[in-house]
């Protein structure tokens, strides 16, 4: 499968979490990729592992948007 398909899946998973009212609380990047920790208003937590470079660009854009607008 092409890396692009991997990215599309990662993007969908990130978009889905945001649509569900989650926001990014923490990001840990290490040799295993990036771990995006999200939380919703009820305090429920989810962690997404993002492996593709385009995926890492994508959550960075989401984070910048979140910090600029205070929301996603």
């Amino acid at each position: 499968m092409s890396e692009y398909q991997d990215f599309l899946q990662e993007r969908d998973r990130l978009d889905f979490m945001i649509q569900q009212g989650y926001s990014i609380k923490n990001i840990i990047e290490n040799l295993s990729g990036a771990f995006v920790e999200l939380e919703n208003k009820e305090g429920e937590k989810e962690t997404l592992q993002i492996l593709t470079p385009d995926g890492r660009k994508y959550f960075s854009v989401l984070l910048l948007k979140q910090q600029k607008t205070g929301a996603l």
Partner: protein
Amino acid sequence: MADLRINLAGIQSPNPFWLASAPPTNSGYQVQRAFEAGWGGAVWKTLGDPILNVSSRFAAVSFNGQKVAGFNNIELITDRPLEVNLKEIYETKKKFPNHAIIASLMVEPKQEKWHEIVKRVEDVGVDGLELNFGCPHGMAERGMGAASGQVPELVQKQTYWVKEVAKTPVIVKLTPNITDITVTAEAAVEGGADAISMINTINSLAAVDIDTWDTVPHVGGKGAHGGYCGPAVKPIALHMVGECARNPRINVPISGIGGISNWQNAVEFMLMGATGVQVCTAAMHHGFRIVEDMIEGLNNYLDEKGIASVSELVGKSVQKYSDWGDLDLNYKIVARINNDTCINCNKCHIACEDTSHQCIDMLKDESGKGYLKVREEDCVGCNLCSIVCPVDGAIDMVEVKSGLPPMTWNERQAALGILACGVDPVTK
């Protein structure tokens, strides 16, 4: 007809094309012929304490039939008596009062030595001085040239000594044999330099003869490292000029040198911050008359662009030369193959398949004829396929909208920092 005159720190010349200090400027005979051919200025072959040269001095690197892609020398400064050079400088200046003659100088790092030579060359009417802190061989072993040009304190001190007595503008010629040329450029400015020039030659060994096992060149079976110049060094020189031009602490004009072979190269150096350029290898390869094409080409270029004076080019690309961390990570280009012009050599497919991202597919049309197509979503826009393609225009690199707003690495890291600790690590 555009105005090609330049004024580099007070040194005026009818055009931006100067001959660099090297064999083409060894004598009055040569410099006068060069001025007749159209060169705007000449930096005389470096004057200094007496030296001796070896025989077998030059070597060139040919690449795939291209002669002199790079040029290597183990020649030192002038070996002619100072008096003879001074007399010829005087005569040449008298014959060509409107052309720039700059004396290149190199003596031991001693105040009285610099004072003496500066006074003597200024007495014969030079328009400026260029301090050669760059020669990488021979002189360096005696504490001169690159040996002093690699030590910022020595660059500053020697520039200062020259400025104590100099009446004409002082250009400091820098060596590229250093990790960060802006450090020595700053030292030159602190020493009072009116301008800087770069680059001198890069430490090199041209080749080893695989039959005799001798170095190329060799002097009776023995070799020594030399200095590299010519087209191969142009990217290195251009980068160094750009780094100095965009450094706010280096606020003096730059004379660009290194691999300049035609008017286009000269325009590149001027756009990247050079006020004028110097040429050595191209003149040694093709003779003085290459300047005719350079002048004509530059003139036409300026006229076509509607630019009245060549000085208007200076530094126009500098603000576009940034740091990697300030580039937009969401800018995206992809390769597109024009099947009408493609000759189906498959070089691009092999390049992408073997050494890039495996995204040029070999497909067949209805008639069974093979063609290539880029899977754009997997293309990272590395340019490799278009670089190896032998047919101009067969591959276009085109911008595609990523759908994401611009974002630099620095902005991204700042956002991650805020998330981690609540503060912006870039501004704090």
